[in-house]
């Protein structure tokens, strides 16, 4: 299977090399990065390794958005509220100085202890949270701040009020707004990239994943409950739909994998932050010279190319 996996990645490399894209430097940087990723991959993750990613992505000590913010940003100012009905604590937004430039940041935020978890609704945004994020996107666009988003959400919230407040529409419109922005957008999945809740803030020019994060269309438990009619079969489900970073890279869904400290990000948050910061900076450096129109066009073209069919 390793060979097969490598083959596909090589195929993707070959395809990329053949594309006649604008911006030769950017493309070669892209290729170089893929090359590096390829070298890192010895074999496709086994079912056990995939499940380990699920566990690490959900680890209770895993660094959350604000843990990275405090390590990577200077002059951070957290902003609040959707200017409508609420300030959703499951979504953190703000502006800060990152590597010499002002950026706008949107991040999902889980809680560390019971009290904070409740306050932050276990990281699951309400529609008000997506609207808060959209307000930040507008601010970023107005002032030309690059936009960073850190994704770490178990999924959209399965609650009555979330539906009544328009969860589906809010997720759709958040994506639509991202597809219209003229500023560079970089997303990194730093834990759980759960379904609609994740994609709401992940329509980016570059999408990264930390090595032990997962990106899923449905939680393993949810998938198991539907297809195996038994939520306990989550491990089987995960093995079947392969939410790990390596598979996401192989499928062309993400652009690169951000390494974590040996044993997972929680074993050394400072080092995890350093590695994440480096990846975000590299991505921004690449994107910032690109004109707004081209950014937007390329971003849309990239997402419109995703999918496998005959």
């Amino acid at each position: 299977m390793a060979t097969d996996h490598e083959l596909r990645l090589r195929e993707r490399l070959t395809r990329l090399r053949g594309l006649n894209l604008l911006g030769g430097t950017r493309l070669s940087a892209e290729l170089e990065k893929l090359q590096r990723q390829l070298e890192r991959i010895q074999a496709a993750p086994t079912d056990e390794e995939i499940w380990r990613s699920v566990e690490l992505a959900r680890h209770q000590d895993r660094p959350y958005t604000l843990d990275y913010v405090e390590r990577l940003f200077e002059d951070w100012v957290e902003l609040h509220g959707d200017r409508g009905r609420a300030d959703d604590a499951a979504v953190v937004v703000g502006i800060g100085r990152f590597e010499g430039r002002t950026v706008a940041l949107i991040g999902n935020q889980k809680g560390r202890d019971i009290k904070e978890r409740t306050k932050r609704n276990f990281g699951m945004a309400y529609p008000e949270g997506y609207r808060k994020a959209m307000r930040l996107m507008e601010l970023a666009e107005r002032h030309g701040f690059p936009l960073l988003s850190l994704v770490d959400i178990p999924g959209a919230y399965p609650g009555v009020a979330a539906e009544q407040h328009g969860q589906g529409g809010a997720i759709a419109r958040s994506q639509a707004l991202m597809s219209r922005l003229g500023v560079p957008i970089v997303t990194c999945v730093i834990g759980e990239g759960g379904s609609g809740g994740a994609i709401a803030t992940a329509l980016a020019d570059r999408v990264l994943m930390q090595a032990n994060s997962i990106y899923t269309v449905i939680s393993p438990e949810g998938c198991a409950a539907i297809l195996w009619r038994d939520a306990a079969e989550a491990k089987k489900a995960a093995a079947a739909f392969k939410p790990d970073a390596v598979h996401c890279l192989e499928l062309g869904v993400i652009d690169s994998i951000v390494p974590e400290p040996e044993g997972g990000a929680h074993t050394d948050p400072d080092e995890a932050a350093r590695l994440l910061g480096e990846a975000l900076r590299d991505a921004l450096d690449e994107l910032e010279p690109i004109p707004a129109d081209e950014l937007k066009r390329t971003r849309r073209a990239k997402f419109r190319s995703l999918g496998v069919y005959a």
Partner: protein
Amino acid sequence: MSSRIDVSIEHRNVPEPPGKKHPNTCPACDSHYRDDELEAALWVCPHCGHHFTMRARTRIASLADEGSFSEEAADLRSEDPLDFFDLRPYTERLAEAEMKTGLGEAMVIGQAAIDGNGCELAVMDFSFMGGSMGSVVGEKFSRACDSAAQRGVPLVSITASGGARMQEGILSLMQLPKTVCAVEDLHDAGQPMISVMTHPTTAGVLASFASLGDVIVAEPGALLAFTGPRVVQQTTREKLPEDFGLAEQNLRFGHIDAIVPRPELRAYVTRLLRLFGPNGD
């Protein structure tokens, strides 16, 4: 301490959403019909007005001027990028769905005219794997946007979907941003999208292109929810309002523009096509 978000739930006294019975037995009033009777009535119960699920080709026939529909991208077929296997292989499920429905996928797209107004149609079929959105549905919808943009006509989208297609894993999630970008390209080309949500329009489809219509209408009683009532109930143990997630609740909460009974849909869409049409500007 109260939560920062007002999560008080509004309850209303309205009839139960329909349950499950024989396909041609009305779940609302128990009347039973032959196929041809329902076909003649646009699959609306002549007795009580309940809207049965309508197949994609029947829907197209009910809207498009006779002989005007010209299908596009009919030969697109799903692949199995994950070698997905649950209790059965994905490829087997696909083959069975095609056999059962006579359709290559859960969406049919093509050029059409409605009462003389040119448009593009993108119509989902719930019978094909629950109208789930995988790579082919995403691609077809995307091409429908381009076809509409190129010909300078509005897009009429008619959805019926249980959500993303799990068997394509993360690629099915990627159909959300993909279709969103397609609608935005359509809008940049100056063309509108009219979104008709039918029962059920949920999860990934609700959270992407279906919610981006310039005008959004629903059929009566349609379930329009990101998360369906069963999962909400199981996860949160909340007492569900009687009309939880239905079109009527969505209208009350400001998420859709109107509820249009099926017999009136063609006239309603025609009027919109005229208003958004080339003479409308």
